[in-house]
Protein backbone atom coordinates (compact mmCIF):
# COMPACT_ATOMS: atom_id res chain seq x y z
CA UNK A 1 0.00 0.00 0.00
CA UNK A 2 1.46 3.37 -0.91
CA UNK A 3 1.64 5.66 2.05
CA UNK A 4 0.74 9.33 1.80
CA UNK A 5 3.62 11.39 3.15
CA UNK A 6 2.73 14.85 1.91
CA UNK A 7 -0.65 16.52 1.83
CA UNK A 8 -2.36 19.84 2.06
CA UNK A 9 -2.64 21.08 5.64
CA UNK A 10 -6.24 21.11 6.89
CA UNK A 11 -5.89 24.76 7.85
CA UNK A 12 -5.07 25.70 4.25
CA UNK A 13 -7.88 26.01 1.71
CA UNK A 14 -7.53 24.53 -1.77
CA UNK A 15 -8.10 27.87 -3.43
CA UNK A 16 -5.35 28.83 -5.90
CA UNK A 17 -3.52 31.88 -4.54
CA UNK A 18 -3.49 35.24 -6.24
CA UNK A 19 0.20 35.74 -5.47
CA UNK A 20 2.64 36.24 -8.32
CA UNK A 21 4.01 32.88 -9.54
CA UNK A 22 7.12 32.13 -7.54
CA UNK A 23 6.18 34.36 -4.62
CA UNK A 24 7.05 32.95 -1.21
CA UNK A 25 3.88 34.27 0.49
CA UNK A 26 2.34 30.93 -0.52
CA UNK A 27 5.15 29.04 1.22
CA UNK A 28 4.77 31.15 4.35
CA UNK A 29 1.02 30.52 4.33
CA UNK A 30 1.62 26.81 4.15
CA UNK A 31 4.06 26.87 7.06
CA UNK A 32 1.56 28.76 9.20
CA UNK A 33 -1.18 26.27 8.28
CA UNK A 34 1.12 23.37 9.15
CA UNK A 35 1.78 24.86 12.56
CA UNK A 36 -1.96 25.29 13.16
CA UNK A 37 -2.50 21.65 12.16
CA UNK A 38 0.42 20.51 14.31
CA UNK A 39 -1.13 21.97 17.44
CA UNK A 40 -4.64 20.89 16.41
CA UNK A 41 -5.97 24.39 17.00
CA UNK A 42 -7.65 25.15 13.68
CA UNK A 43 -11.09 25.38 15.24
CA UNK A 44 -9.95 27.89 17.78
CA UNK A 45 -7.62 29.97 15.66
CA UNK A 46 -8.41 33.50 14.55
CA UNK A 47 -6.31 35.22 11.92
CA UNK A 48 -5.95 38.97 11.64
CA UNK A 49 -5.34 40.12 8.08
CA UNK A 50 -3.53 43.32 7.25
CA UNK A 51 -3.54 45.27 4.03
CA UNK A 52 -0.96 44.46 1.37
CA UNK A 53 -0.46 41.29 -0.58
CA UNK A 54 -1.55 39.14 2.35
CA UNK A 55 -4.96 40.74 2.81
CA UNK A 56 -6.70 37.84 1.06
CA UNK A 57 -5.68 35.56 3.89
CA UNK A 58 -9.30 34.65 4.46
CA UNK A 59 -9.35 32.95 1.09
CA UNK A 60 -6.45 30.68 1.98
CA UNK A 61 -6.77 29.81 5.65
CA UNK A 62 -9.58 27.63 6.92
CA UNK A 63 -9.96 29.73 10.05
CA UNK A 64 -12.00 32.75 11.13
CA UNK A 65 -10.37 35.93 9.91
CA UNK A 66 -10.84 39.61 10.63
CA UNK A 67 -9.37 42.27 8.40
CA UNK A 68 -7.58 45.13 10.17
CA UNK A 69 -6.78 48.60 8.84
CA UNK A 70 -3.24 49.12 7.49
CA UNK A 71 -0.78 48.53 10.30
CA UNK A 72 -3.34 48.01 13.04
CA UNK A 73 -3.46 44.22 13.07
CA UNK A 74 -1.61 43.95 16.41
CA UNK A 75 -4.19 46.21 18.09
CA UNK A 76 -7.10 44.28 16.57
CA UNK A 77 -5.42 41.04 17.65
CA UNK A 78 -5.09 42.48 21.16
CA UNK A 79 -8.84 43.05 21.30
CA UNK A 80 -9.59 39.57 19.97
CA UNK A 81 -7.17 37.87 22.34
CA UNK A 82 -8.32 39.83 25.40
CA UNK A 83 -11.92 38.97 24.67
CA UNK A 84 -11.10 35.33 23.83
CA UNK A 85 -7.95 34.40 25.75
CA UNK A 86 -8.44 30.71 25.00
CA UNK A 87 -8.17 31.25 21.25
CA UNK A 88 -5.02 31.17 19.12
CA UNK A 89 -4.63 34.56 17.48
CA UNK A 90 -2.12 35.46 14.81
CA UNK A 91 -1.44 38.41 12.56
CA UNK A 92 0.22 38.15 9.18
CA UNK A 93 1.82 41.43 8.14
CA UNK A 94 4.13 42.89 5.53
CA UNK A 95 7.00 45.27 6.21
CA UNK A 96 5.08 48.36 5.12
CA UNK A 97 2.31 47.28 7.45
CA UNK A 98 4.41 46.37 10.48
CA UNK A 99 7.50 48.54 10.18
CA UNK A 100 6.00 51.76 8.77
CA UNK A 101 2.39 52.68 9.42
CA UNK A 102 1.97 50.13 12.20
CA UNK A 103 5.23 50.66 14.12
CA UNK A 104 3.42 52.01 17.14
CA UNK A 105 0.93 49.15 17.29
CA UNK A 106 3.56 46.41 16.93
CA UNK A 107 5.88 47.90 19.55
CA UNK A 108 3.21 48.38 22.17
CA UNK A 109 1.50 45.06 21.52
CA UNK A 110 4.86 43.34 21.88
CA UNK A 111 5.64 45.38 24.96
CA UNK A 112 2.37 44.41 26.61
CA UNK A 113 3.41 40.84 26.01
CA UNK A 114 0.13 40.07 24.28
CA UNK A 115 -0.01 36.31 23.90
CA UNK A 116 -0.31 36.38 20.13
CA UNK A 117 1.85 35.30 17.21
CA UNK A 118 2.99 37.70 14.50
CA UNK A 119 4.18 36.48 11.13
CA UNK A 120 6.10 39.35 9.62
CA UNK A 121 6.92 38.97 5.95
CA UNK A 122 9.81 41.24 4.99
CA UNK A 123 10.24 41.63 1.24
CA UNK A 124 11.86 45.10 1.44
CA UNK A 125 9.10 46.75 -0.62
CA UNK A 126 5.44 47.63 -0.62
CA UNK A 127 4.39 44.77 -2.85
CA UNK A 128 0.71 45.32 -3.42
CA UNK A 129 0.92 49.01 -4.21
CA UNK A 130 3.58 48.49 -6.86
CA UNK A 131 7.00 48.33 -5.29
CA UNK A 132 7.49 51.55 -3.36
CA UNK A 133 10.22 51.98 -0.75
CA UNK A 134 9.66 50.33 2.63
CA UNK A 135 11.38 50.95 5.97
CA UNK A 136 13.22 47.68 5.24
CA UNK A 137 14.38 48.63 1.75
CA UNK A 138 18.14 48.02 1.59
CA UNK A 139 20.59 50.89 1.17
CA UNK A 140 21.13 51.47 -2.50
CA UNK A 141 18.07 49.43 -3.44
CA UNK A 142 16.00 50.97 -6.22
CA UNK A 143 12.26 51.07 -5.78
CA UNK A 144 9.58 53.10 -7.53
CA UNK A 145 9.96 55.83 -4.88
CA UNK A 146 13.71 55.50 -4.42
CA UNK A 147 14.65 55.49 -8.09
CA UNK A 148 18.23 56.53 -7.30
CA UNK A 149 18.55 53.84 -4.67
CA UNK A 150 17.82 54.22 -0.97
CA UNK A 151 20.13 56.82 0.52
CA UNK A 152 20.43 56.93 4.30
CA UNK A 153 20.78 60.72 4.16
CA UNK A 154 17.26 61.13 2.84
CA UNK A 155 15.57 57.86 3.75
CA UNK A 156 17.30 56.63 6.88
CA UNK A 157 18.43 53.05 7.36
CA UNK A 158 16.61 49.76 6.90
CA UNK A 159 14.99 48.81 10.22
CA UNK A 160 15.80 45.48 11.81
CA UNK A 161 12.48 44.76 13.49
CA UNK A 162 13.21 41.30 14.92
CA UNK A 163 16.25 42.65 16.80
CA UNK A 164 14.44 45.79 17.91
CA UNK A 165 11.42 43.95 19.26
CA UNK A 166 13.66 41.43 21.01
CA UNK A 167 14.73 44.20 23.40
CA UNK A 168 11.21 44.45 24.83
CA UNK A 169 10.41 42.59 28.05
CA UNK A 170 7.01 41.48 26.79
CA UNK A 171 8.50 39.49 23.91
CA UNK A 172 8.80 35.74 24.41
CA UNK A 173 10.23 34.85 21.04
CA UNK A 174 11.71 36.90 18.24
CA UNK A 175 13.47 35.33 15.32
CA UNK A 176 14.36 35.91 11.68
CA UNK A 177 14.14 33.18 9.07
CA UNK A 178 14.20 33.04 5.31
CA UNK A 179 12.56 31.07 2.53
CA UNK A 180 15.28 31.26 -0.13
CA UNK A 181 16.03 27.52 -0.31
CA UNK A 182 14.58 24.24 1.00
CA UNK A 183 16.85 24.19 4.04
CA UNK A 184 15.84 27.72 4.95
CA UNK A 185 12.19 26.73 4.53
CA UNK A 186 12.64 23.85 6.98
CA UNK A 187 14.19 26.25 9.50
CA UNK A 188 11.32 28.67 8.95
CA UNK A 189 8.88 25.85 9.57
CA UNK A 190 10.50 25.11 12.94
CA UNK A 191 10.49 28.79 13.87
CA UNK A 192 6.84 29.29 13.01
CA UNK A 193 5.90 26.18 14.94
CA UNK A 194 7.93 27.48 17.89
CA UNK A 195 6.17 30.83 17.70
CA UNK A 196 2.77 29.15 17.92
CA UNK A 197 4.05 26.90 20.67
CA UNK A 198 4.93 30.00 22.67
CA UNK A 199 1.34 31.13 22.38
CA UNK A 200 -0.10 27.71 23.12
CA UNK A 201 2.05 27.66 26.28
CA UNK A 202 1.00 31.21 27.16
CA UNK A 203 4.55 32.51 27.14
CA UNK A 204 3.79 35.91 25.64
CA UNK A 205 4.34 37.68 22.36
CA UNK A 206 6.05 35.81 19.54
CA UNK A 207 7.29 37.13 16.21
CA UNK A 208 8.79 35.43 13.19
CA UNK A 209 10.31 37.75 10.64
CA UNK A 210 10.32 35.91 7.33
CA UNK A 211 12.67 37.21 4.63
CA UNK A 212 10.87 36.90 1.36
CA UNK A 213 11.60 37.82 -2.24
CA UNK A 214 9.36 40.11 -4.22
CA UNK A 215 10.81 39.33 -7.61
CA UNK A 216 7.99 41.10 -9.44
CA UNK A 217 8.74 44.44 -7.84
CA UNK A 218 12.45 43.76 -7.67
CA UNK A 219 12.15 43.14 -11.41
CA UNK A 220 14.13 39.91 -11.42
CA UNK A 221 13.26 36.27 -12.09
CA UNK A 222 12.02 34.17 -9.15
CA UNK A 223 15.32 32.31 -8.90
CA UNK A 224 17.35 35.51 -9.09
CA UNK A 225 15.08 36.83 -6.34
CA UNK A 226 16.00 33.95 -4.03
CA UNK A 227 19.65 34.63 -4.79
CA UNK A 228 19.19 38.28 -3.85
CA UNK A 229 17.64 37.26 -0.55
CA UNK A 230 20.68 35.12 0.20
CA UNK A 231 23.35 37.50 -1.02
CA UNK A 232 21.91 40.93 -0.27
CA UNK A 233 19.22 40.64 2.38
CA UNK A 234 20.69 38.12 4.80
CA UNK A 235 23.97 40.06 5.27
CA UNK A 236 21.95 43.04 6.51
CA UNK A 237 19.09 41.07 8.09
CA UNK A 238 20.93 38.18 9.77
CA UNK A 239 18.98 35.01 10.43
CA UNK A 240 18.73 33.75 13.97
CA UNK A 241 16.88 33.83 17.26
CA UNK A 242 17.11 37.18 19.03
CA UNK A 243 15.07 36.26 22.04
CA UNK A 244 13.63 33.05 23.36
CA UNK A 245 11.97 32.81 26.70
CA UNK A 246 12.45 29.38 28.20
CA UNK A 247 10.47 29.58 31.38
CA UNK A 248 7.72 31.75 32.70
CA UNK A 249 10.42 33.88 34.28
CA UNK A 250 8.43 37.00 33.56
CA UNK A 251 5.81 36.20 36.12
Amino acid at each position, binding site marked *: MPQQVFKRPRALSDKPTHFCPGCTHGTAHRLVAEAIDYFGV*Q*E*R*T*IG*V*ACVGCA*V*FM*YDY*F*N*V*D*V*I*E*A*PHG*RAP*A*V*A*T*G*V*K*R*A*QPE*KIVFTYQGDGDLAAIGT*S*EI*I*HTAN*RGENITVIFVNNTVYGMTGGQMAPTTLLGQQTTTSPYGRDFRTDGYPIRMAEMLATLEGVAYSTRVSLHNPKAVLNAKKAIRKAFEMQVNEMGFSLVEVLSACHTNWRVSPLAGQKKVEEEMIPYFPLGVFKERTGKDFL
Partner: protein
Amino acid sequence: MKDLQLIKGNVALAEAAIQAGCRYYFGYPITPQNDIPEYLSEHLPKAGGIFIQAESEIASINMVMGASASGARAMTSSSGPGISLMQEGMSYMAGSEIPCLVVNIMRCGPGLGGISPTQGDYFQATRGGGHGDYYNIVLAPASVQEMFNLTIKAFELADKYRNPAMILADAILGQMKEPASLEPTEPIQFFDKPWAITGAKDHKPQYLKTLYLNDGEQEAHNLQLKEKYDHIRENEPLYEEQATSDAEIVIVAFGTASRIVKTAIKLAREEGIRAGLVRPITLFPFPSKAVYEASKRVRKVLVVEMNTGQMLTDVQISAHREADIHFYGRPGGGVPTPEEVLAEIKRSIHATAGIQAP
Protein backbone atom coordinates in the same frame (compact mmCIF):
# COMPACT_ATOMS: atom_id res chain seq x y z
CA MET B 1 -39.34 56.55 43.66
CA LYS B 2 -35.94 55.44 42.38
CA ASP B 3 -32.84 56.28 44.38
CA LEU B 4 -31.14 59.37 43.05
CA GLN B 5 -27.42 59.96 43.32
CA LEU B 6 -25.51 63.16 42.85
CA ILE B 7 -23.17 62.03 40.11
CA LYS B 8 -20.92 63.33 37.35
CA GLY B 9 -22.06 62.83 33.75
CA ASN B 10 -18.91 60.97 32.74
CA VAL B 11 -19.24 58.63 35.70
CA ALA B 12 -22.94 57.95 35.06
CA LEU B 13 -21.99 57.05 31.49
CA ALA B 14 -19.20 54.72 32.60
CA GLU B 15 -21.50 53.02 35.11
CA ALA B 16 -24.16 52.60 32.41
CA ALA B 17 -21.61 50.87 30.20
CA ILE B 18 -20.87 48.30 32.88
CA GLN B 19 -24.57 47.72 33.49
CA ALA B 20 -25.11 47.36 29.75
CA GLY B 21 -22.70 44.44 29.76
CA CYS B 22 -19.69 46.23 28.33
CA ARG B 23 -16.64 44.30 29.54
CA TYR B 24 -13.89 45.72 27.36
CA TYR B 25 -12.66 49.27 27.43
CA PHE B 26 -9.68 50.54 25.46
CA GLY B 27 -8.77 54.20 25.53
CA TYR B 28 -6.23 56.96 25.70
CA PRO B 29 -6.47 59.93 28.09
CA ILE B 30 -7.79 63.28 26.92
CA THR B 31 -9.63 66.04 28.75
CA PRO B 32 -12.59 66.43 29.40
CA GLN B 33 -13.46 62.74 29.43
CA ASN B 34 -10.82 61.25 31.72
CA ASP B 35 -13.33 60.31 34.41
CA ILE B 36 -14.60 57.60 32.07
CA PRO B 37 -11.35 55.60 31.79
CA GLU B 38 -10.56 56.35 35.42
CA TYR B 39 -13.87 54.92 36.59
CA LEU B 40 -13.67 51.92 34.28
CA SER B 41 -10.07 51.12 35.23
CA GLU B 42 -11.34 50.69 38.76
CA HIS B 43 -14.69 49.03 38.16
CA LEU B 44 -14.35 46.94 34.99
CA PRO B 45 -11.91 44.44 36.51
CA LYS B 46 -14.30 44.00 39.44
CA ALA B 47 -17.04 43.17 36.96
CA GLY B 48 -14.83 40.58 35.28
CA GLY B 49 -13.91 42.91 32.46
CA ILE B 50 -10.72 44.24 30.96
CA PHE B 51 -9.40 47.78 30.90
CA ILE B 52 -6.42 48.65 28.75
CA GLN B 53 -4.89 52.07 28.44
CA ALA B 54 -3.76 51.92 24.83
CA GLU B 55 -0.80 53.73 23.31
CA SER B 56 -3.04 55.89 21.13
CA GLU B 57 -6.60 56.41 19.98
CA ILE B 58 -5.73 54.55 16.80
CA ALA B 59 -4.79 51.49 18.83
CA SER B 60 -7.82 51.98 21.12
CA ILE B 61 -10.41 51.82 18.40
CA ASN B 62 -8.71 48.85 16.77
CA MET B 63 -8.65 46.98 20.07
CA VAL B 64 -12.36 47.76 20.36
CA MET B 65 -12.75 46.33 16.86
CA GLY B 66 -11.08 43.07 17.89
CA ALA B 67 -13.08 42.67 21.09
CA SER B 68 -16.38 43.59 19.41
CA ALA B 69 -15.63 41.24 16.53
CA SER B 70 -15.34 38.54 19.19
CA GLY B 71 -18.97 39.14 20.09
CA ALA B 72 -18.38 41.18 23.24
CA ARG B 73 -19.67 44.61 24.13
CA ALA B 74 -16.70 46.96 23.90
CA MET B 75 -16.19 50.69 23.95
CA THR B 76 -13.79 53.56 23.88
CA SER B 77 -14.12 57.22 24.77
CA SER B 78 -12.28 60.34 23.78
CA SER B 79 -12.66 63.95 22.77
CA GLY B 80 -12.29 65.75 19.41
CA PRO B 81 -8.62 65.20 18.51
CA GLY B 82 -8.79 61.58 19.63
CA ILE B 83 -12.02 60.94 17.77
CA SER B 84 -10.32 62.22 14.61
CA LEU B 85 -7.73 59.46 15.03
CA MET B 86 -10.45 56.86 15.52
CA GLN B 87 -12.26 57.61 12.28
CA GLU B 88 -10.25 55.09 10.30
CA GLY B 89 -11.23 52.30 12.63
CA MET B 90 -14.85 53.41 12.74
CA SER B 91 -15.01 53.33 8.96
CA TYR B 92 -13.66 49.78 8.98
CA MET B 93 -16.18 48.76 11.63
CA ALA B 94 -19.08 50.28 9.74
CA GLY B 95 -17.83 48.52 6.60
CA SER B 96 -17.45 45.13 8.24
CA GLU B 97 -20.56 45.70 10.35
CA ILE B 98 -18.97 45.42 13.76
CA PRO B 99 -20.84 47.23 16.53
CA CYS B 100 -19.18 49.32 19.23
CA LEU B 101 -19.67 52.38 21.37
CA VAL B 102 -17.52 55.46 20.91
CA VAL B 103 -18.02 58.32 23.32
CA ASN B 104 -17.07 61.83 22.26
CA ILE B 105 -17.07 64.36 25.08
CA MET B 106 -16.49 67.25 22.69
CA ARG B 107 -13.94 69.99 23.20
CA CYS B 108 -13.56 72.95 20.93
CA GLY B 109 -11.42 72.73 17.83
CA PRO B 110 -10.27 72.69 15.13
CA GLY B 111 -6.88 71.36 16.04
CA LEU B 112 -5.86 71.12 19.67
CA GLY B 113 -8.36 73.86 20.42
CA GLY B 114 -9.45 74.16 24.01
CA ILE B 115 -11.07 71.97 26.59
CA SER B 116 -14.20 74.03 27.04
CA PRO B 117 -17.59 72.80 25.86
CA THR B 118 -18.68 73.00 22.24
CA GLN B 119 -20.79 71.15 19.72
CA GLY B 120 -18.27 71.50 16.93
CA ASP B 121 -18.02 67.78 16.11
CA TYR B 122 -21.59 67.45 14.84
CA PHE B 123 -20.56 67.01 11.21
CA GLN B 124 -17.79 64.58 12.08
CA ALA B 125 -20.19 62.47 14.12
CA THR B 126 -23.24 62.50 11.88
CA ARG B 127 -21.61 62.36 8.42
CA GLY B 128 -19.71 59.17 9.07
CA GLY B 129 -16.51 61.08 9.71
CA GLY B 130 -14.17 58.53 8.21
CA HIS B 131 -13.84 57.50 4.59
CA GLY B 132 -16.59 55.84 2.60
CA ASP B 133 -20.35 55.66 2.55
CA TYR B 134 -21.50 55.07 6.11
CA TYR B 135 -23.09 56.58 9.20
CA ASN B 136 -22.63 56.26 12.92
CA ILE B 137 -25.70 56.00 15.10
CA VAL B 138 -25.39 59.19 17.17
CA LEU B 139 -27.14 59.94 20.47
CA ALA B 140 -26.95 63.32 22.16
CA PRO B 141 -27.75 63.37 25.88
CA ALA B 142 -28.77 66.60 27.60
CA SER B 143 -28.53 65.57 31.25
CA VAL B 144 -26.59 63.28 33.54
CA GLN B 145 -29.62 60.99 33.62
CA GLU B 146 -29.47 60.73 29.86
CA MET B 147 -25.70 60.14 29.92
CA PHE B 148 -26.75 56.96 31.76
CA ASN B 149 -29.89 56.01 29.82
CA LEU B 150 -28.63 56.77 26.35
CA THR B 151 -25.39 54.87 26.88
CA ILE B 152 -27.41 51.72 27.44
CA LYS B 153 -29.53 52.57 24.43
CA ALA B 154 -26.40 53.14 22.32
CA PHE B 155 -25.07 49.65 23.09
CA GLU B 156 -28.45 48.18 22.16
CA LEU B 157 -28.71 50.07 18.88
CA ALA B 158 -25.10 49.27 17.96
CA ASP B 159 -25.70 45.55 18.42
CA LYS B 160 -29.13 45.61 16.82
CA TYR B 161 -27.77 47.18 13.64
CA ARG B 162 -24.15 45.93 13.79
CA ASN B 163 -22.90 49.47 13.49
CA PRO B 164 -20.75 51.86 15.52
CA ALA B 165 -22.80 54.03 17.86
CA MET B 166 -21.64 57.27 19.35
CA ILE B 167 -22.54 59.31 22.40
CA LEU B 168 -21.99 62.94 21.47
CA ALA B 169 -21.82 65.10 24.58
CA ASP B 170 -19.72 68.01 25.73
CA ALA B 171 -17.55 69.08 28.61
CA ILE B 172 -20.53 70.44 30.56
CA LEU B 173 -22.46 67.16 30.41
CA GLY B 174 -19.31 65.20 31.15
CA GLN B 175 -18.16 67.28 34.07
CA MET B 176 -21.28 68.47 35.84
CA LYS B 177 -22.98 66.68 38.70
CA GLU B 178 -26.73 66.16 38.80
CA PRO B 179 -29.06 63.84 40.63
CA ALA B 180 -29.64 60.74 38.53
CA SER B 181 -30.94 57.23 38.98
CA LEU B 182 -28.43 54.56 38.07
CA GLU B 183 -31.07 51.93 37.48
CA PRO B 184 -32.07 51.03 33.94
CA THR B 185 -35.68 51.92 33.24
CA GLU B 186 -36.21 48.80 31.11
CA PRO B 187 -34.53 45.41 30.88
CA ILE B 188 -31.33 45.73 28.88
CA GLN B 189 -31.50 44.08 25.46
CA PHE B 190 -28.88 41.63 24.24
CA PHE B 191 -28.53 40.18 20.76
CA ASP B 192 -27.24 36.91 19.34
CA LYS B 193 -24.05 37.40 17.36
CA PRO B 194 -23.64 34.44 15.02
CA TRP B 195 -21.43 36.62 12.84
CA ALA B 196 -18.71 36.97 15.50
CA ILE B 197 -15.29 35.46 14.86
CA THR B 198 -14.86 32.94 17.63
CA GLY B 199 -12.93 30.19 15.87
CA ALA B 200 -14.46 27.93 13.26
CA LYS B 201 -15.63 25.29 15.69
CA ASP B 202 -19.34 25.16 15.15
CA HIS B 203 -19.41 26.82 11.79
CA LYS B 204 -17.53 27.29 8.54
CA PRO B 205 -14.69 29.81 8.75
CA GLN B 206 -16.12 33.28 8.59
CA TYR B 207 -14.69 36.65 7.85
CA LEU B 208 -15.20 40.20 8.93
CA LYS B 209 -13.90 42.25 6.08
CA THR B 210 -14.39 45.40 4.04
CA LEU B 211 -12.49 44.54 0.87
CA TYR B 212 -14.70 43.73 -2.11
CA LEU B 213 -12.84 43.69 -5.39
CA ASN B 214 -15.07 41.58 -7.62
CA ASP B 215 -17.26 43.42 -10.10
CA GLY B 216 -20.26 44.96 -8.39
CA GLU B 217 -19.55 43.43 -4.97
CA GLN B 218 -18.63 46.68 -3.25
CA GLU B 219 -21.65 48.42 -4.68
CA ALA B 220 -23.95 45.63 -3.55
CA HIS B 221 -22.40 45.83 -0.09
CA ASN B 222 -22.89 49.59 0.07
CA LEU B 223 -26.47 49.30 -1.13
CA GLN B 224 -27.13 46.79 1.60
CA LEU B 225 -25.65 49.24 4.11
CA LYS B 226 -27.85 51.98 2.67
CA GLU B 227 -30.92 49.82 3.19
CA LYS B 228 -29.88 49.40 6.81
CA TYR B 229 -29.41 53.14 7.25
CA ASP B 230 -32.79 53.81 5.63
CA HIS B 231 -34.36 51.38 8.07
CA ILE B 232 -32.65 53.16 10.97
CA ARG B 233 -33.86 56.52 9.66
CA GLU B 234 -37.38 55.21 9.52
CA ASN B 235 -37.47 53.45 12.87
CA GLU B 236 -35.07 54.94 15.37
CA PRO B 237 -35.32 58.75 15.48
CA LEU B 238 -35.71 60.04 19.02
CA TYR B 239 -36.60 63.57 19.99
CA GLU B 240 -38.20 65.63 22.71
CA GLU B 241 -40.79 68.29 22.08
CA GLN B 242 -41.72 71.02 24.51
CA ALA B 243 -44.37 73.73 24.30
CA THR B 244 -44.71 73.51 20.52
CA SER B 245 -48.52 73.11 20.33
CA ASP B 246 -49.25 76.83 20.65
CA ALA B 247 -45.82 78.12 19.63
CA GLU B 248 -45.18 81.09 17.37
CA ILE B 249 -41.51 80.19 17.13
CA VAL B 250 -39.90 76.79 17.41
CA ILE B 251 -36.31 76.42 18.50
CA VAL B 252 -34.24 73.42 17.49
CA ALA B 253 -31.31 72.62 19.75
CA PHE B 254 -29.57 69.48 21.04
CA GLY B 255 -27.54 68.53 24.09
CA THR B 256 -26.34 71.30 26.38
CA ALA B 257 -27.69 74.02 24.08
CA SER B 258 -31.21 72.58 24.48
CA ARG B 259 -31.06 73.05 28.25
CA ILE B 260 -30.16 76.70 27.86
CA VAL B 261 -32.94 77.04 25.31
CA LYS B 262 -35.43 75.56 27.79
CA THR B 263 -34.63 78.34 30.24
CA ALA B 264 -34.85 80.91 27.44
CA ILE B 265 -38.29 79.55 26.48
CA LYS B 266 -39.44 80.04 30.06
CA LEU B 267 -38.17 83.62 30.02
CA ALA B 268 -39.86 84.19 26.66
CA ARG B 269 -43.19 82.83 27.85
CA GLU B 270 -43.00 85.09 30.92
CA GLU B 271 -42.87 87.94 28.42
CA GLY B 272 -45.76 86.54 26.43
CA ILE B 273 -43.68 85.15 23.59
CA ARG B 274 -44.88 81.65 22.72
CA ALA B 275 -41.67 79.76 22.08
CA GLY B 276 -41.31 75.97 21.87
CA LEU B 277 -38.52 73.42 21.50
CA VAL B 278 -37.76 70.43 19.32
CA ARG B 279 -34.72 68.63 20.68
CA PRO B 280 -33.19 65.91 18.53
CA ILE B 281 -31.98 63.09 20.81
CA THR B 282 -30.69 60.99 17.95
CA LEU B 283 -28.59 63.10 15.59
CA PHE B 284 -28.30 60.21 13.20
CA PRO B 285 -31.01 59.29 12.46
CA PHE B 286 -32.04 62.95 12.51
CA PRO B 287 -35.70 63.38 13.54
CA SER B 288 -36.55 65.01 10.23
CA LYS B 289 -40.27 64.31 10.42
CA ALA B 290 -40.62 65.98 13.79
CA VAL B 291 -38.75 69.04 12.57
CA TYR B 292 -40.83 69.08 9.40
CA GLU B 293 -44.15 68.86 11.27
CA ALA B 294 -43.19 71.55 13.77
CA SER B 295 -41.88 73.90 11.09
CA LYS B 296 -45.00 73.32 9.02
CA ARG B 297 -47.20 74.46 11.90
CA VAL B 298 -44.86 77.11 13.22
CA ARG B 299 -43.13 78.82 10.34
CA LYS B 300 -40.54 80.61 12.47
CA VAL B 301 -37.59 78.39 13.32
CA LEU B 302 -34.49 79.28 15.31
CA VAL B 303 -31.58 76.86 15.47
CA VAL B 304 -29.29 77.28 18.47
CA GLU B 305 -25.97 75.48 18.59
CA MET B 306 -22.55 75.74 20.18
CA ASN B 307 -20.88 75.85 16.76
CA THR B 308 -21.21 77.92 13.59
CA GLY B 309 -24.22 76.08 12.20
CA GLN B 310 -23.80 72.35 11.68
CA MET B 311 -27.12 70.80 12.74
CA LEU B 312 -28.59 73.83 10.98
CA THR B 313 -28.01 72.02 7.69
CA ASP B 314 -30.11 69.06 8.85
CA VAL B 315 -32.85 71.43 9.95
CA GLN B 316 -32.78 73.13 6.55
CA ILE B 317 -33.05 69.78 4.79
CA SER B 318 -35.91 68.69 7.04
CA ALA B 319 -37.97 71.86 7.52
CA HIS B 320 -41.06 72.87 5.58
CA ARG B 321 -39.96 74.84 2.52
CA GLU B 322 -41.76 77.97 3.67
CA ALA B 323 -40.19 77.95 7.11
CA ASP B 324 -38.21 81.05 8.01
CA ILE B 325 -35.05 79.63 9.55
CA HIS B 326 -32.72 81.64 11.78
CA PHE B 327 -29.52 80.61 13.47
CA TYR B 328 -27.66 81.53 16.62
CA GLY B 329 -24.36 79.89 17.47
CA ARG B 330 -21.50 80.27 19.94
CA PRO B 331 -18.49 78.36 18.68
CA GLY B 332 -15.19 77.79 20.38
CA GLY B 333 -16.08 77.20 24.00
CA GLY B 334 -18.52 80.07 24.46
CA VAL B 335 -21.71 78.93 26.13
CA PRO B 336 -24.81 80.95 25.23
CA THR B 337 -26.78 82.42 28.12
CA PRO B 338 -30.59 82.11 28.27
CA GLU B 339 -30.76 85.91 27.93
CA GLU B 340 -28.73 85.80 24.73
CA VAL B 341 -31.02 83.14 23.35
CA LEU B 342 -34.08 85.16 24.39
CA ALA B 343 -32.69 88.16 22.49
CA GLU B 344 -32.25 85.92 19.44
CA ILE B 345 -35.80 84.64 19.80
CA LYS B 346 -37.06 88.21 19.72
CA ARG B 347 -34.81 89.14 16.82
CA SER B 348 -35.92 86.07 14.85
CA ILE B 349 -39.57 86.83 15.42
CA HIS B 350 -39.16 90.31 14.04
CA ALA B 351 -36.69 89.50 11.28
CA THR B 352 -38.08 88.29 8.00
CA ALA B 353 -34.90 87.23 6.26
CA GLY B 354 -33.52 83.77 6.67
CA ILE B 355 -30.35 82.60 8.28
CA GLN B 356 -28.08 84.99 10.09
CA ALA B 357 -24.44 84.46 10.83
CA PRO B 358 -23.60 84.22 14.51
